[in-house]
């Protein structure tokens, strides 16, 4: 699940995907991205990001673990950036 806050409009959005709704290719993509970005070892930064950038709070739950990372849009490393884009576009309706 991803919560996006911040931005000049200050509007909060939530998007989530579950692996059950993904086809095998998409599942592989997500798993690869999580691995590449070393997601489960990532620490959240306690520094606020630059003004008016989006802030993403990303939570991933598997059968065995759950981990949350909070990161500014400005600091999204490539693997995480692609994952965020994938999830943000996945849902057709915003859920708040």
């Amino acid at each position, binding site marked *: 699940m991803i919560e996006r*806050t*911040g*931005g*000049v*409009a*200050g*509007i*909060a959005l939530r998007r989530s995907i579950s692996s059950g709704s993904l086809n095998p290719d998409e599942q592989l993509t997500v798993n690869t991205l999580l691995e590449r970005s070393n997601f489960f070892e990532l620490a959240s930064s306690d520094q*606020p*990001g*630059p*003004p*008016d*950038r*989006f802030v993403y709070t990303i939570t991933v739950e598997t059968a065995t673990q759950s981990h949350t990372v909070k990161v500014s849009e*400005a600091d999204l490393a490539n693997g995480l950036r692609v994952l965020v884009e994938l999830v943000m576009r996945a849902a057709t*309706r*915003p859920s*708040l």
Partner: protein
Amino acid sequence: MKSHTPVCCILPPHILVKLSENPAYRDRAMRNLMLTEQLRGRRTVLGVMSALAIAAGQERRTIYDDQHGGSTSLPGQLVRGEGDNPTADDAVNEAYDYSGDTYDFYQQVFGRNSIDNRGMRLDSSVHYETDYDNAFWNGQQMVYGDGDGQFFQRFTICLDVVGHELTHGVTASTAQLEYQGESGALNESFSDVFGSLVKQRKLGQSANEADWLIGAGMFTPNVNGTALRSMAAPGTAYDDPNIGKDPQPADMSGFDPQGDVHTNSGIPNHAFYLAAMKIGGNAWEKPGLIWYRTLTERLQPTSSFQDAADLTVAVAGEQFGAGGLEQKSVQQAWQEVGISPSIATAVRIPVAAAYPQAEQPAA
């Protein structure tokens, strides 16, 4: 361009800089340097020359098209330089015009020479990424998205939003309010306040005539809302099934300790609105000056709402007289949003102590 015996583009910038220090060549060297620098679309030369080169009132704007690239492709393709004619691209022209309006505001109202008070160039990139519902100042330049077109228009479309972003640069050069908690909400509020004042002055609106909305026109007709935020009535700007409801509080009873800085900013925003309405006239004149001096001379990175209240009251007294209408209006405004300013104990922080790294007081 006038033609001169060329001190010309074949000379590298550092030689032109040296020549410009000689009064006999200065004018010519300056002109050629500016042209060279503009063609290159880079700031490095200006940075070297800032102290001697930038005359107050000489704004310098360069607009780039990021062509839907991300941060690694910034600034993008140069599409409009200072003095160039409008292009066919509305986003380019709005970025150009509105950064000019913001420059003019700070220069003409407060004598501030650009964001850093040293004539910093105002670069903007438009068409950042795709469907990007945001705009920001990244420390060096403005960056604008196109909006998704479904809920949001392009982000150059509102003058106050441009002023808001550029004011983050002013804050970063002065109080450096940390972007979290109360100091972060103050940071946001100062951006809304001065963004709104840029718009009000451009439109020639007194406090009574202004709409006190931030980003009116940012939403598409698909959204049930008038603006991103309301300073007059925080919490009422929008209520939409897709976007949600405006979460801003108008006073401390609604302060959210976990709230986004754009949420709690409603409280100091409303205080400014109330002070401006009580004082009357054009809000950028007396209230604007009080808020400007507080931001640029008094506030610290970790200042709280209480500090802002105490300091705006103190500045109002110093500027317009202790016990005057202005000071009383500012005091009452903060009281109405739930903060009681302490007049007698407001501490004057000397500028040198507050900004030991500054070469001179920011003014």
